[in-house]
């Protein structure tokens, strides 16, 4: 049975690494649900968050293929209950939506969203949360005429007490060796 997995990849910030990583999924016919990349806590090392629907067995193989790439320092995969994660969504609404009564204000309050800007013709609302939460707000705002909507890919942190830098500093923790270690990591994380 397919389950949702989040893959964290730590790589050098070089041209082409993204392509190398995504072809690993393409070649195996795995669709990427969401992907985000940005610099990690260590300068020069970038962190990818990739969300896919797959099986644990396939994830083990895919993660090993990702780690095999020369510029990848480490890669991990986590089921949903092993991570803290968040997404961000922005909603552009016509300014008339707030001019008729207070319902928009209630919606924003109840959803813990916030207004980022109000321009002459439109306003932009921001909401962070899980996909179902940002989607729920979208559904509530829809009747007011959402002009534009955007949702980011997932950012996720593992529940592991280990810091990534520890892996980097300890050569014996280099790229993982066996599947037992993979499982141990997954269990500890």
């Amino acid at each position, binding site marked *: 049975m397919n389950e949702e997995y989040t893959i964290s990849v730590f*790589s*050098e910030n070089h*041209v*082409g690494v993204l*392509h*190398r990583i995504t*072809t690993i999924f393409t*070649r195996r016919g795995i669709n990427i649900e969401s992907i985000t990349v940005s610099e990690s806590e260590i300068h020069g090392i970038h962190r990818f968050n990739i969300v896919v629907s797959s099986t644990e067995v396939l994830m*083990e*193989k895919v993660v*090993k*293929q990702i*780690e*095999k790439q*020369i*510029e*990848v*320092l480490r890669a991990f995969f986590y089921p949903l209950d092993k991570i803290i994660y968040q997404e961000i969504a922005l909603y552009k609404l016509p300014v008339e939506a707030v001019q008729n009564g207070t319902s928009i204000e209630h919606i924003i309050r109840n959803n813990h969203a916030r207004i980022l800007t109000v321009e002459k013709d439109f306003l932009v609302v921001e909401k962070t949360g899980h996909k179902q939460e940002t989607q729920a707000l979208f559904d509530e705002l829809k009747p007011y005429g959402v002009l534009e909507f955007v949702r980011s890919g997932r950012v996720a942190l593992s529940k592991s007490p280990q810091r990534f830098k520890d892996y*980097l500093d300890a050569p*014996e923790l*280099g*790229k*993982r*060796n*066996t*599947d037992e270690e993979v499982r141990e990591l997954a269990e500890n994380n």
Partner: protein
Amino acid sequence: MEIVAEKKPKNDERKAVRVSGAEALILSLEHEGVTTIFGYPGGAIMPVYDALFDHQENIHHILMRHEQGAVHAAQGFARASGRVGVVFATSGPGATNLITGIADAMIDSTPVVCITGNVFSPLLGTDAFQETDVVGISMPVTKWNHQVTSAEEIPDAIAKAFYIAKSGRPGPVLVDITKDAQVNEFDFSYKTCEGIRSYHPVPALDNDKLKEAADLINKAKRPFVLFGQGIILSHAENELKAFIEKTGIPAAWTLLGLSALPTNHPLNVGMLGMHGNYGPNFLSNESDVVIAVGMRFDDRVTGKVSEYLNNSKVIHMDIDPSEINKIIHADVPVLGDAKESLSALTALVNENSHEEWIQRFRDCDKKEHEKVIKNELFPTAGVLTMGEVIRIMSENAKSDAIIVTDVGQHQMVTSRYSKFVKSKSSITSGGLGTMGFCLPAAIGARFGAPERQVIGVIGDGGFQMTIQELGTIFQTDIELKILILNNHYLGMVRQWQQLFFDKRYSATEMVNPDFQTIARGYGIESKKIEKREDLESGIKEFLNFKGSYLLEVVVGKENNVFPMVPAGCSVAEIRLE
């Protein structure tokens, strides 16, 4: 692993000199001990060829007739010599022509460094003449690739390229250099690459795993060693021999593991895989412990995976962690370099012998001999068989000859029936199964091991895929023996059509030209043999001739290669007829 370089790299650091990027590239290659390059010039790499002109005393450039041939030649060079093969090609079509060879080198773990020229960097992405995204195109089939857009980056990129290509599990890398990077000048100095923080080529040995493996081996009743090219790549031939001799375990080889263990070694029980020997296939599932070393359980080896090694504990020894549990679950994974792992394991195992178990292989051999080998190698009437040609060729070739094969029936027959005493003696396209590999790879092998006899065995189909490389033989005046087994068919496809497609021979019959006339045009001696009584003398003449020689032997049109594990069947269902 260490790749032995003929020329030691020069001192790492030296006084900076002001040179162009192209000159810096050639100097960098000299620092890496490069003496031979296979290539083809063109607009975007002209500054590099211009710089090469002043270094002809140190670097021998072989002008191939097609860029695909250049990569295959570099592969043949690498496989024969244990060194890194180097390729030059221009941008656009020059670069895209490399892809088949690079993909072949990737799947067969061959260390090759490809250098391509590209257009001036401001023209990248503008659809300029002969501009193509070679870095993007080659990414899925290279171990690493990189585009250089400034001259200063060249030494580091080359140092990294060589380090990556030859270390750990070897593979092809590509460095694309824009024309402005080739012409701009900078202060050159060179430092070989000694490590990359994100890359751990050789995993550390795990003593606990080795002990677990040794325990399994010491208790095993029917242990079986499967070895692949990893033995050759890590120079572990002696360690493999020591291991099997101490434990008395029978050993079988994958197509690329061929020649790592002498054919006549009493514990060498033959070839694995679809057209391998009967015993190693049939008895795989009766083994209780399998020790797989430097091999990757290709589907041609495993047959139907769900019915493979179900009663065996598997010890998988490999340098590449991604191979562990990729196809077959490893009960005991042993990561590391095969040479180190095998010698450590040999120290932990008991001396043993498995005579009864080995007798089972001998019984299978007898059956295979009766049903297949006898008729294939010693026919007395009827059409010539590929087997008898290869038997006579192997009997008369020098004992350390390098046999290069193409892909198809002749490849399987040659691998099955050639006798080898020395490692790095069989060069073939395994994983990718690239027709057209043989001729250029044999040329490369000739340069990689100039002291050894090189014989290319090719089918009539594969020969015509890279036939243009006869021009390279002509121009370089090398001595190469080319044996064409001509059955006027794309034989392996025809065999499948006969067995599985009701003899519907769709697009497999070949109407061939006169190969002697073609050879003559290239100044290559040639003869055609059609009768059994001419075969032995013809082969002797072919092998003893001073200079290149193309021998065409017309063999049975509808002969088949057996044994055979039909696709999708278990190895135990191997067919002898």
